[in-house]
């Protein structure tokens, strides 16, 4: 890869007009770059500014209250149910998507014929191109009716785990379905990042393992995984970030409820993002402010997840020496 810093050594010939042109163009591009920082800061500032009025008048505990009535008198609202739904659905989505995503990456890079690799990668990328509203529609119209039998089986035989127990015998818009749809949606993210790091594993490591008589799986376990682990972790984190903030698919699939229900296949559940989309048009002034406050929590949640993911990647690339 070309080292961009070497271009700086070759400074242009000095001259008044040349320097002015460079100053203008360099300045323009610099301010375009700074726009990114300004937008990120502005998001935080404006959300905080709009969240304060409702937080000041809230008579419930913002973090533990299990109801959402910001336009009432007195206003009472809290994010407990939202946080539960968001974290649980994202966690289950991760449990489903991370092993499968890593498997897909392994398949494309190491198992499938090399000629097909590009086409297979394209197919997984197509999954990323499907808009979330179409996944929501599909979940609502295809997955929910199609999976009732499986969920009933899980309730019958795995009901002792409590989370799969379905006391209502109703298999509809539940956190479990939302998690499955989220898992499908974050699959391409996990697979794409894992694929990139698996491609970077030095051929020497893999060939050395095979030359010592390792089977293909032993090669994967002993040469590929140790090298690619940080990349896979950050791919999973990026997927988590996407799952936490996913709105429309979840809003269509969940039947918004403001109680915490540990039975995940029963109707109910809610997330930060879905709640904002569903409550937006019926909210009054304080209601909008309360929704902004919950959006602020979501923003900082995804921000920290993404920062950790990026930090893991950048730390890795500094000493990897893969290229």
């Amino acid at each position, binding site marked *: *890869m070309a*080292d*961009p810093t*070497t*271009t700086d050594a*070759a400074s*242009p010939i000095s001259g008044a007009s*040349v320097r002015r*042109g*460079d100053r203008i*163009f*360099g300045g*323009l*591009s610099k301010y*375009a770059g700074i726009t*990114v*920082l300004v937008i*990120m800061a502005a*998001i935080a500032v404006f*959300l905080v500014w*709009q969240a304060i009025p409702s937080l000041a008048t809230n008579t419930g505990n913002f973090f533990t209250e299990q109801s959402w009535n910001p336009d009432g008198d007195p206003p009472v609202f809290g994010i407990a149910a939202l946080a539960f739904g968001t974290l649980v659905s994202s966690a289950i989505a991760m449990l489903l998507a991370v092993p499968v*995503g890593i*498997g897909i990456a392994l*398949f494309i*890079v190491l*198992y*499938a014929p090399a000629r097909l690799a590009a086409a297979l990668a*394209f*197919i*997984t990328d*197509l*999954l990323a*191109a*499907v*808009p*979330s*509203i*179409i996944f929501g*529609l*599909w979940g*609502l119209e*295809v997955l929910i009716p199609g999976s009732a039998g*499986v969920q009933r*089986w899980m309730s019958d035989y795995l009901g002792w785990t409590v989370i799969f127990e379905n006391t209502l015998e109703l298999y509809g818009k539940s956190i479990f379905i939302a998690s499955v749809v989220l898992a499908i949606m974050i*699959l391409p993210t996990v*697979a794409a990042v894992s694929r990139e790091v698996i491609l970077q594993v030095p051929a020497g490591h*893999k060939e050395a393992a095979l030359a010592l008589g390792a*089977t*293909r799986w*032993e090669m994967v376990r002993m040469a590929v995984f140790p090298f690619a682990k940080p990349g896979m972790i950050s791919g999973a984190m990026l997927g988590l970030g996407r799952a936490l903030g996913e709105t429309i698919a979840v809003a*269509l699939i969940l039947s918004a409820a403001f109680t915490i229900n540990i039975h995940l296949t029963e109707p109910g559940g809610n997330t930060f*993002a879905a709640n*904002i*989309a569903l409550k937006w048009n019926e909210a009054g002034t304080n209601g909008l402010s309360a929704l902004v406050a919950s959006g602020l929590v*979501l*923003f900082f949640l*995804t*921000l920290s997840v*993404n920062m950790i993911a*990026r930090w893991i990647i950048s730390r890795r690339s500094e000493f990897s020496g893969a290229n």
Partner: protein
Amino acid sequence: MTTTVDTSTRPPSSLIGGTLPTWAPALIGALAVASAVGLNMTTGLAGWFGTTIVGALIFVVIQSIWSFAVEGKRHAVDRLATTVVYSTFVIAVVPLISVLFTVLAKGLKVMSWGFLVNSMRNVSPRNPGGGAGHAIVGTLEQVALAAAFAIPVGILAAIFLVEYGRGRLARAISFFVDVMTGVPSIVAGLFIFTAFVLGLGMERSGFAAALALAILMLPVIIRTTEEMLRIVPNELREASYALGVPKWRTVLKVVLPTSLAGIVTGAMLAVARVAGETAPLLLTTFLTQSYNNNPFAGPQAALPTFIWDQITSGTTASVDRAWAGALVLITLIMIFYIVAKLLANRFAPKG
């Protein structure tokens, strides 16, 4: 670069233990399918899902036992891992095919020329008819506006990172571009609403939606442009400097034209990504059932919000319209996507 030795096709050798014949997986597979289907017919196993799971389990068990007996534990584990890796890909492809097939089958039911040009004006949600023409116009205008904001800023920012950027500022920008990629779309909508509608007193409009979409596009465009600029060979830049061309003209006349195709591809992918965004539109433009060709004033429909509106209406006719809207949207996105990929393949820098 991935020259993996295929151990399963190696000729038998006295130095290594016994191996299963190459046709073994096919035989076990046929056996598993036959017994799963047989069980399904005789005992009424729980649907196609249960049948598939039982078939897969039978395959894994027979293969493991046979391989363990002939080849030993290590190879049995290897075969098990291979089966698992192959099946993960199948798991990913099943929902993709199901989504695309359902959209096609259900969308074509009410698809017609009328659906593409009519609006929902004076059409009750309960009645069939109407169309998504107003939403198609809205989506195209909003996405075009968003691209008009995000593409110039994004390309300039990428130029800064590659050609000018040094030190802490460039590192900070680069880091936050990555973080910005992960900003949830609904947060972008919330930001535009608080800053422009509450802050500046703008009305909700297609323009506000375009601003929210631009925020989502920006990091994608910066990242892809940056990658393209970095693969422009340094020799080209140095040759230009050697001829006395100042740096800014080198960037404009040498670096950008060389990487133009890749930049266009990145922009198309960014457009494809935001064209299906629903959440920011719900917050920044009201729903409307009529044509509004002016994105700067009044509520404007878009395909994602059209689909949302039709699903939440919940009648048979409106859900049919939602599927048809989904078909239009997915076709639009696939066109962007495939054009982008073709451009990338056709104009990819050689060497």
